[in-house]
């Protein structure tokens, strides 16, 4: 009996330990980014790093200004969100409120499959089809632009936005919708005057997570956006994002060089951006919980 108790005690502690593993990993990620990223700030100040307009990591003297990369990331993400947010939310409302059960099940599977397409495949297809189309449609010298990348990223963000919005719509209490219908409102009036406002914070969370998905995406932007590290003036111009810079340059840099540390510092920047986005989404979800 006693041995059984000890065994149980050990197991339960093991379970508790495994459960804090995700905290440990998150801390480890941050520590390792700091460890290899912070040394770059002995060469360039944090302010110059974030606001410098020139990214020439291998010329001498090297210039480590990531403003063009930040703007590249923001531009592509903004484009993607502008397309994906209305489509994703619209799709969620269609699935949750309008679609007949068979079509609903079908669409849910489709949305899940889209979420599963490997990003490198989307990047490849964007490169060989969409970029050619963009080039010919707008008569520009290259189709690998921020615009092209934004479209492909939008497609990647739609599943995230649609699934989470759908959950938010489902969580609106049934009696609210019934009360509205009983007062003589049409289904559409109920949808946008009752269901939409009460699910709004969940939808905001969904859009934020979609933004996070788009800003953190690497392969698509590396293959489709043209990779030129200059501050973009139009959306029909090649841009380079934070993620693509790390992925494209890490292979060629010398371990321990300033360039290497600068790439890790970009990693820190990305980590912080992702953290803030998740925090906003989390707050939005919590507000919903408080009101329901």
């Amino acid at each position, binding site marked *: 009996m006693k041995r059984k108790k000890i065994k*149980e005690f050990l197991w339960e502690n093991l*379970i508790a330990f495994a459960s804090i593993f995700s905290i440990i990993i998150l801390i480890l990620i941050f520590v390792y980014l700091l460890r290899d990223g912070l040394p770059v700030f002995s060469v360039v100040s944090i302010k110059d790093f974030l606001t410098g307009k020139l990214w020439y990591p291998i010329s001498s003297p090297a210039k480590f200004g990531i403003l063009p990369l930040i703007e590249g990331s923001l531009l592509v993400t903004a484009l993607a969100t502008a397309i994906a947010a209305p489509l994703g939310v619209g799709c969620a409302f269609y699935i949750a409120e309008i679609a007949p059960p068979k079509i609903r099940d079908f669409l849910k599977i489709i949305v899940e499959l889209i979420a599963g397409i490997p990003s490198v*495949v989307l990047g490849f297809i964007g490169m060989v089809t969409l970029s050619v189309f963009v080039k010919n449609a707008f008569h520009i010298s290259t189709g690998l632009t921020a615009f092209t990348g934004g479209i492909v990223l939008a497609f990647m963000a739609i599943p995230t936005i649609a699934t989470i919005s759908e959950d938010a719509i489902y969580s609106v209490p049934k009696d609210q919708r019934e009360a509205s219908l009983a007062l003589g409102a049409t289904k559409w009036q109920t949808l946008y005057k009752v269901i939409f406002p009460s699910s709004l914070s969940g939808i905001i969370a969904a859009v934020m997570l979609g933004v*996070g998905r788009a800003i953190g995406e690497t*392969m698509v932007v590396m293959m489709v956006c043209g990779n030129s590290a200059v501050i973009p003036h139009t959306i029909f111009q090649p841009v380079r994002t934070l993620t693509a810079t*790390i*992925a494209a340059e890490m292979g060629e840099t010398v371990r321990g060089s300033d360039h290497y540390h600068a790439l890790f510092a970009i990693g820190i920047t990305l980590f912080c951006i992702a953290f803030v986005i998740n925090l906003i989404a989390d707050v939005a979800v919590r507000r919903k919980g408080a009101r329901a």
Partner: protein
Amino acid sequence: MRAKISQHIAFTILTLCGFAVVLPIIFILGFLLVKGLPAINIEFLTAAPRAGMKEGGIFPAIVGTLYLVICAISVSLPLGVTCAVYLTEYARDNWLTRLIRLSIVNLAGVPSVVFGLFGLGLFVIFLQFGSSILSGSLTLAFLILPVIITASEEALLTVPKSFREAALALGATRLETIRTVVLPNALPGILTGSILGVSRAAGETAPILFTVAAFFLPRLPHSIFDQAMALPYHLYIIATQVPGIPDKTKYGTALVLVVLVFGLNLIAIFFRNRFRKRRKW
């Protein structure tokens, strides 16, 4: 009447949104099938690449990806399920639980390329595993951990409370209840989650860029400390880094990758739907 008309217009737009999502995926699948199918034959699937990857097949990349996902899932499945067990069976609503949940959400939001940097810093350089299957699969394991935890938790929560109470009333300890009653009943849901995790790991490129991937390695890896080719990375390099690769080969590689990932996803979805229908309680 006006209300009717505006409802009609609005619902048409929402319906279009719903189906706008379907068109691109049909296009992508159709496009890959038409362009990629001619490349698929026995040699393509079972031979190593030759002549600077212009000829031969993609066998080492397929095997490399299989090794990677098997190693990744064997690390993250036990970890993820244990964590889910803690969250559903033991955790109280206190700061630690909230911290665990917050870190899972944030872990899911960390960009994949940042996972790659982390893997490079910790496994490849600090722990000196080098560029290897071990480094890559550990990186992937941590990347898919949130997927596994969330799916397992959902599966554990569907097991009714009365099952647990019955077991406890018969004198089973909490651990025995979990082992003999809760986990077996949640198993199909946990399996679904792990298949989804595997498919995610199979398709990721950025985390393996600096931790495992070999540009060109026309042989099979010897051990987990060996470098390996992987399908997504292989597609990336033949599509962008190496000039003169026949289009057929690129489309063929993309098709194989998509079929692999979609196949896994469909199995998971099918499995989950059957499990939901069959539930007796």
